[in-house]
């Protein structure tokens, strides 16, 4: 059984709105009761939620949304804390009765976070990581987003809630690594494929030379390349049988023959210029025949194809609006994808209404840029893999064609293709230049052959043949080497491609298998909470004819929210039909049902202002649902709930239940972000001690806000304990006049009971209230501070107010002497002991 934890204490100093220097805000929570924390706006309730988020997740969502230039790191620590440091201490109680774990998180002025465990946990950071469950900390935004999100975003968020975050992340990771484009790039599949194509072309060129030289040596055509070994032996035999060459070939394989040595010997024996010219002419003829072997028809097709690609690219570029707009669209896409702008039919720049979707428009524009970029890559790849590229390069560099260096164009053309800057005009010029060079080959070849015939006639026949045989033998051997090396390299690269394709097939299949299994698991879990969330939704909204339904897609992570019943109509969009409170009620129901069913290490749920969109009635139904059915131990499998709220009406509910066993209520007061925040129960004694200390030191200004807190607390304590009725608008009256509001409520109630003859207070108490304490509080506080008309009072006058309020409180208590000893007790009401 997994050990789970309640949150039983939270202490904060120097974090966000909580200054509390040397006097941490210290709140305790009961695991066996619903815990509420109430504070009016600006009193640090959000800072409590953020402190918990930072403690557990190490982040504050609100600050993560800030831009870097806004320096979010400057806003973690309270800006008025003299040390500019923060500390958060949280206590977690295991639900199996073992000892509590205390974790302390410190943040120094440099922004460094350190985590320690005063209770001695060996891995405090690891422990906090276990608490990172999707449901533990929930705020209003989380609920609102649940309905507003796209089905895919909702599906992914919801996976976390179902306890399937790891599955969802893993599924996305598998999709990322099996993405075809990522595989081509990361595994270099495209680069290797281009290399293989280039090698295949080199092999074909080597074959041309092999065929030509073989035919010249043996007089037979080279037909079946698979019998290459036989052809090599034939060439070796043919050359080895020439009388003058026998000694060079005897006992040697073709690759071991030193053709240069043979040539040198021939040169030595016959020092004629004519023989050397013949040798060079044969070499030229071979080189020219190699050029003539290029398939000009195929090259023409390649050129046409590349020309079409250039036209298509130009057309795509013309439909875009330049780099400046590209940056604009990319920025806009970022704004929309990060939910900074959620109104899809409104322009984020001028905020005018649009007739179509802004995200759709941006996507369409960026797609055009992406298509143009893809086309540029396509042109580059087509050029790199083309025979045209090799053909043009080979022709320019071929010595027999004698192309002047300054006329060569290959480097320039290649550079333009590689950079993507090739224009249609450049393309036309390159095609024309290639044609000029290829046409030149036939004339130069004919001239070389004529010259060879002429020289042969001038030289002795035996020597002519010998020179020819040796040169063809050298060419055959070189081509054989090229052919074999290129084939070997091609095979090695092809093997790398083959195994990568095998991986592609495997990882794609693995992704499908995982995704199918994840979808099935998710569906099963959704089915598992079906009854619960529907029943919770019905209880919160008190409706029976609106029935929500969550539908998980079969092949995607999309999660659709539908209404299986909407006042008799079926299968309609919840997003389109439900009002905000209904949507949030649905989201809360789904979240709470999931948290109950699939909860992890944290056995607590912190709800921050989740009832903002609810009216009083629905707030009540939600709170009752939590109190009666979801909170442990009433629900044996239930959770501990901690509800943060600033809602004045809801606070009446908290106040009413605050002293019952089911509920533990904290009310925050204070003057953040500069002053301290204290909760009432913790604060009264500490407040009084601080006030006395400040007044003794003559620090009147610093004491004044604390005196107001103390007065409010004591007066509200009387109202609660003696059950004094307050006007219906009491909670929403001007809070700066809370002291007089409380005094008015108390004195009116006393007057009423006096007139009815039901007042239980003794005569002395009534007289003290009327003639001493109320006039002292009104005269020394209300008339000075609530009207803002008076200057500060002296320290001794303010000390008198503290004494008056304490004595005033005593007027609502009596000595119970019914037992063995006397006990000081509150009156039950103004008419009952």
């Amino acid at each position, binding site marked *: 059984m997994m050990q789970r934890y309640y949150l039983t204490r939270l202490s904060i100093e120097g974090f966000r709105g909580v200054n509390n220097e040397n006097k941490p805000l210290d709140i305790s929570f009961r695991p066996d009761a619903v815990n509420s924390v109430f504070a009016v706006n600006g009193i640090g309730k959000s800072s409590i939620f953020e402190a918990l988020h930072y403690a557990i997740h190490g982040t504050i969502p609100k600050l993560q949304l800030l831009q870097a230039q806004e320096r979010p790191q400057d806003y973690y620590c309270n800006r008025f804390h003299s040390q500019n440091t923060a500390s958060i201490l949280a206590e977690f109680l295991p639900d199996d009765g073992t000892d509590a774990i205390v974790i302390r998180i410190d943040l120094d002025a440099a922004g460094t976070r350190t985590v320690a465990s005063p209770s001695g946990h060996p891995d405090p950071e690891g422990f906090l990581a276990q608490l990172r469950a999707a449901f533990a900390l929930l705020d209003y935004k989380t609920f609102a987003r649940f309905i507003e999100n796209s089905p895919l975003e909702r599906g992914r968020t919801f996976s976390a809630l179902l306890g399937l975050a790891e599955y969802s*992340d893993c599924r996305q990771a598998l999709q990322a690594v099996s993405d075809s484009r990522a595989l081509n790039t990361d595994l270099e599949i495209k680069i290797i494929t281009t290399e293989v194509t280039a090698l295949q072309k080199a092999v074909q060129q080597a074959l041309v030379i092999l065929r030509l030289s073989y035919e010249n040596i043996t007089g037979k055509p080279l037909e079946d390349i698979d019998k290459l070994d036989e052809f090599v032996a034939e060439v070796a035999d043919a050359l080895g049988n020439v009388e003058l060459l026998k000694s060079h070939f005897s006992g040697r394989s073709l690759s071991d023959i030193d053709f240069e040595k043979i040539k040198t010997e021939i040169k030595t024996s016959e020092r004629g210029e004519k023989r050397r010219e013949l040798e060079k002419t044969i070499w030229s003829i071979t080189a020219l025949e190699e050029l003539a072997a290029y398939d000009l028809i195929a090259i023409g097709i390649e050129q046409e194809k590349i020309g079409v690609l250039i036209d298509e690219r130009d057309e795509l570029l013309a439909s875009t609006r330049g780099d400046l707009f590209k940056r604009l669209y990319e920025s806009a896409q970022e704004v929309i994808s990060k939910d900074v702008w959620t109104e899809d039919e409104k322009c984020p720049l001028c905020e005018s209404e649009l007739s179509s979707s802004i995200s759709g428009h941006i996507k369409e524009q960026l797609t055009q840029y992406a298509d143009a970029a893809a086309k540029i890559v396509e042109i580059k790849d087509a050029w790199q893999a083309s025979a045209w590229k090799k053909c043009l390069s080979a022709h320019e560099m071929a010595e027999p064609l004698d192309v002047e260096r300054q006329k060569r164009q290959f480097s320039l053309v290649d550079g333009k293709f590689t950079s993507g800057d090739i224009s249609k005009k450049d393309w036309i010029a390159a095609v024309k230049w290639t044609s000029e060079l290829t046409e030149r080959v036939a004339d130069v070849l004919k001239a070389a052959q004529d010259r060879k015939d002429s020289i042969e006639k001038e030289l002795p026949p035996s020597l002519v043949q010998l020179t020819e045989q040796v040169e063809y033998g050298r060419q055959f051997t070189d081509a054989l080497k090229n052919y074999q090396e290129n084939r070997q390299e091609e095979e090695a690269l092809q093997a790398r491609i083959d195994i990568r394709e095998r991986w592609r097939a495997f990882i794609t299949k693995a992704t499908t298998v995982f995704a199918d299994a994840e979808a099935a698991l998710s569906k099963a879990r959704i089915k598992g909470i079906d009854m619960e969330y529907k029943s919770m939704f019905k209880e919160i909204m008190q409706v029976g004819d609106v029935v929500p339904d969550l539908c998980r897609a079969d092949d995607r992570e999309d999660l659709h929210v539908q209404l299986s019943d909407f006042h008799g109509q079926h299968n309609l969009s919840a997003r389109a039909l439900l009002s905000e409170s209904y949507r949030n009620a649905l989201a809360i129901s789904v979240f709470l049902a999931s948290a109950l069913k699939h909860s992890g290490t944290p056995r607590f749920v912190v709800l921050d202002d989740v009832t903002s969109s609810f009216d009083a009635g629905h707030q009540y139904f939600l709170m009752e649902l939590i109190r009666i059915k979801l909170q442990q131990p009433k629900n044996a499998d239930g959770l501990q709930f901690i509800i943060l709220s600033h809602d004045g009406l809801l606070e009446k509910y908290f106040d009413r239940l605050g002293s019952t066993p089911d509920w533990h209520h904290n009310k925050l007061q204070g003057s953040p972000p500069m002053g301290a925040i204290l909760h009432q129960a913790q604060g009264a004694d500490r407040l009084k001690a601080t006030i006395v200390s400040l007044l003794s030191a003559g620090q009147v200004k610093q004491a004044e806000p604390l005196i107001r807190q103390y007065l409010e607390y004591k007066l509200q304590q009387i109202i609660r304990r003696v059950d004094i009725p307050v006007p219906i608008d009491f909670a929403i009256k001007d809070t700066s006049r809370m002291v007089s509001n409380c005094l008015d409520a108390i004195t009116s109630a006393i007057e009423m009971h006096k007139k009815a003859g039901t007042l239980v207070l003794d005569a002395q108490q009534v007289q003290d209230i009327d003639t001493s304490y109320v006039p002292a509080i009104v005269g020394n506080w209300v008339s000075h501070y609530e009207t803002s008309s008076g200057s500060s009072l002296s320290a001794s006058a303010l000390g008198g107010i503290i004494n008056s309020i304490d004595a005033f409180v005593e007027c609502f208590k009596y000595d119970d002497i019914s037992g063995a000893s006397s006990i000081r007790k509150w009156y039950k009401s103004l008419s009952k002991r």
Partner: protein
Amino acid sequence: MTKQNLQSGNFRFDDTKSFSENCDTFLSCLEIIDAEMAAILRNNWDTLVAIVHDGERNSKLRGEFNSKVAMALDLLVKQADLKNNT
């Protein structure tokens, strides 16, 4: 689990088991499709799982994962060459 079952999408996670246990079963089942590729995936599983965290994708880690896979694939090719040559 047979290859046919796996191909027809019958693999399922066990809701009573942990994520890591289910992943282990998943990787074992993949051996039916291609044992050598499944071994590469298993050896680099930790890197794969770290690619997406809380829904946030890390492209650098994706590149790192694929780079490790590429090295493993090339090693397989080399081993096959050595085997063929001996």
